[in-house]
């Protein structure tokens, strides 16, 4: 009977574990796929690195629609407001965490998202031979893809990672430029 009782309360947490575990399986598979090639072992993480970004990017491109539909967030007036929305609404909604925003550059075009605990790495330990793998790199791709759909070109990269022994996980975001809509010639 205990089985019936704890259904429901657990189910929300379980579904985030589904995502975490699925992502883990994907990374593992990618590691396997590229392992046979001993000669390029040194390049391994570079390959993984470049392979991940497009995937995250595609997710971001679609996720932004889901986000806008659900969140009722209006237009952001500056990059600071965007940062707030990302941290307090988007991360909260999809990953259940609220990263803090710090280290603004004087020009206001760069900031850091500090993740106290990163749900993606809940069950993860990096083996020694993959010490340079940027495990959660998908997140950067998602951020980049999502923001590109709202006319912002940004750069996102991990500068600290708890998997590598740092105290926190830090994603550095840099605003590059506003993307102008280019209408095809002859159309208004």
């Amino acid at each position, binding site marked *: 009977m205990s089985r019936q009782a704890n*259904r429901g309360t657990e*189910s929300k947490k379980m579904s985030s574990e589904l995502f975490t575990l699925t992502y883990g399986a994907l990374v593992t598979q990618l590691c396997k796929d590229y392992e046979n090639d001993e000669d390029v072992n040194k390049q391994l993480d570079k390959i993984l690195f470049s392979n991940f970004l497009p995937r995250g990017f595609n997710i971001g491109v679609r996720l932004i629609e889901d986000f806008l539909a659900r969140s009722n967030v209006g237009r952001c007036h500056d990059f600071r407001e965007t940062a707030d929305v990302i941290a307090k609404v988007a991360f909260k909604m999809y990953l259940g965490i609220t990263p803090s925003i710090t280290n603004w550059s004087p020009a206001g075009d760069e900031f850091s998202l500090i993740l106290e605990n990163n749900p993606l790495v809940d069950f993860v330990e990096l083996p020694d031979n993959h010490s340079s793998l940027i495990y959660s790199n998908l997140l950067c791709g998602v951020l980049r893809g999502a923001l590109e759909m709202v006319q912002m070109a940004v750069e996102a990269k991990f500068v600290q990672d708890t998997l590598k022994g740092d105290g926190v996980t830090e994603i550095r975001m840099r605003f590059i430029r506003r993307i102008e809509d280019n209408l095809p010639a002859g159309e208004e």
Partner: protein
Amino acid sequence: MADEALFLLLHNEMVSGVYKSAEQGEVENGRCITKLENMGFRVGQGLIERFTKDTARFKDELDIMKFICKDFWTTVFKKQIDNLRTNHQGIYVLQDNKFRLLTQMSAGKQYLEHASKYLAFTCGLIRGGLSNLGIKSIVTAEVSSMPACKFQVMIQKL
């Protein structure tokens, strides 16, 4: 639940990623399906372990299958299996009339041939879950009209 979208998108990317990076002949000989199935297997193993942590011991095989159809399916796909049938000799057919991973595709016949790509992961998920409960099985899926599908579980007797 908002984070559901994340899983769906990740799953889509996994399928397209596996097929895009496929080398010559890998699509034809089923390597891609196997890869997706293996990923599902790992996830199924992990999930069932977390999920049955505090549950009572299962009575028998049928009890386990019911658990998969109800609790497990609800967690992963937000609904229960619509129909569970068995011949009481180790074959179970799980029917889902509105399978979550197929609902975003056109319901016509147009993409029917691509449906199997989107079922492989789930086949692995079931097999992995059962395997960690001590049941060895073979899981296959079939779609006759989207978005309904059937998973056939063949229990391998030891």
